[in-house]
């Protein structure tokens, strides 16, 4: 085999290798998605969203409390993490040249990598121990702590992509540094930041570990923030390790709903980004 043919063969081999790697990377996602879909679809019906869990041994019922609980937890987490993340990210991008800023950046990255169960323990110490009660607030805080570093870093990175000529333009009109950051730079970066927020949301929507000893769980319908609250991931976990056939089916349905929620966050992220970008360009 001459040199040219060998090079062609090698090139071919590498291309095939890349394709195989992509397949291997995508395969788990596809398998999970279809397996959950197949298992969950049979137990998924309108009752799942509207009915409360039935006592053991009684067929039927749903997870209305967990669906609402998850929404409440996500709302609390966002209320905590979105403002903090946006402002912290703006700080890092706009003022982030001092040693303190690099320390903050490093801390955010470390926080992002901390196992979620540890975040749960932290929130337990912070919001459960002092009042001696599991609560929706504690669960929301735990999830919020997980979102903060994601939103912070996304905000910072996207602000860095906004041309600094915009900042100069605002400053040249008599804007203060902070004014330029929040009235020009941040809106310019908003489409990307929205994506970051939705990515953070889908990351935490399915978290179980931080909720185990913060929001705990609740067999009953509750919207009170100071009380334990049900959530889909914890409910799925509880049902999945139970010995009851009917609960297993419902756990699959819960898993399917979770995957659906996260999937729709991802789609929403794309749609919102596209739309905002188009609005800017028009």
């Amino acid at each position, binding site marked *: 085999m001459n040199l040219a043919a060998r090079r062609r063969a090698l090139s071919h081999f590498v291309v095939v290798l890349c394709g195989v790697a992509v397949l291997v990377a995508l395969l788990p996602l596809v398998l999970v998605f279809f397996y959950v879909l197949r298992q969950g679809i049979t137990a998924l019906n309108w009752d799942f969203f509207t009915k409360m869990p039935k006592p053991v041994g009684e067929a039927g019922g749903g997870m209305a409390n967990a669906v609402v609980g998850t929404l409440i937890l996500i709302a609390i987490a966002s209320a905590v993490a979105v403002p903090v993340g946006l402002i912290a990210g703006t700080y890092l991008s706009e003022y982030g040249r001092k040693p303190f800023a690099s320390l903050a950046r490093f801390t955010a990255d470390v926080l992002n990598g901390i196992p979620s169960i540890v975040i749960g323990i932290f929130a337990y110490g912070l919001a459960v121990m002092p009042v001696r009660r599991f609560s929706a607030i504690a669960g929301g805080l735990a999830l919020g702590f997980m979102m903060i570093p994601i939103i912070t870093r996304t905000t910072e990175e996207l602000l860095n992509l906004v041309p600094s*000529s*915009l900042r100069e333009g*605002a*400053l040249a*009109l*008599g804007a203060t540094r902070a004014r330029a950051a929040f009235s020009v730079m941040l809106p*310019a970066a908003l489409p990307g930041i929205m994506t970051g927020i939705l990515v953070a949301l889908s990351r935490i929507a399915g978290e179980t570990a931080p909720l185990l000893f913060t929001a705990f769980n609740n067999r009953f319908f509750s919207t009170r923030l100071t009380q334990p609250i049900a959530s889909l991931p914890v409910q799925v976990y509880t049902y999945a390790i139970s010995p009851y056939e009917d609960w297993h089916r419902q756990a699959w349905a819960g898993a399917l709903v979770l995957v659906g929620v996260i999937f729709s966050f991802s789609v929403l992220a794309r749609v919102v980004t596209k739309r905002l970008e188009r609005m800017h*360009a028009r």
Partner: protein
Amino acid sequence: MTDVTLMSPEKGTTPARPEVPSRSSLESPAPPSASRIRMETRKLNFFYGKSQALYDISLSVPEKSVTAFIGPSGCGKSTFLRCLNRMNDIIPETRVEGDVLLDGKDIYGPGNDVVDLRRRVGMVFQKSNPFPKSIFDNVAYGLKINGLARRAEMPERVEKALKGAALWEEVKDRLESSALGLSGGQQQRLCIARALAVEPEVVLMDEPASALDPIATQKIEELIYELKRNYTIAIVTHNMQQAARVSEYTAFFMLGRLVERDRTDKIFTNPGQKITEDYITGRFG
């Protein structure tokens, strides 16, 4: 093969001096002594970290006229311009020595409010930088942040600024659409309108037409010509014909130093320094 093919035509021949249009010297004959000095620098030195970019620049910008800064790339003319509204403040590790006076008051002096300074000394940048907002919001931005107009007055002030920048007729039907949908020349005039809206006393322009085609450039130049009735303008330009067309005074910079500053017609017809003549006639730079 001969060397001739490698030589650029500019170096091979001596082009004629840029023509000085007669209108500027005829219509605005104000002699330097008659107009009030609006901005002035005294022994201005500027440093990026350890390297010095400007050396002992003493220069005045007379009221209601255009002063052009010319010189080869890296000569410090943009840096100098950005000293006049303290735009260099935002670059870390820069240092200014000497005085920059606006109406006789040192703008780097203690207790001087840089935000107020930038409202009084507006700036238009080389690359147009409209905010990703509507046309209206772009022009209204400076008014809003400085609290210069009540909500009800906004439309009127925005219209006035857009008319001042000769853009009103082109955008009056689409004030609410994004500024990013405008053409390059329109975007630059929008940026001028945005600067005019806050009614500055001095307008600094950093190569405002260098990224534009000849037609858009002509519009900007005509606009500058109009603006000097009411505003004091300092403009950095690479284009010597442009300096000759729009300005009353020209300052020539080289390697961070001011070589000379005089009436534009004098600089372009009978410069005091040999090096100025060499630059203007295209022998280098």
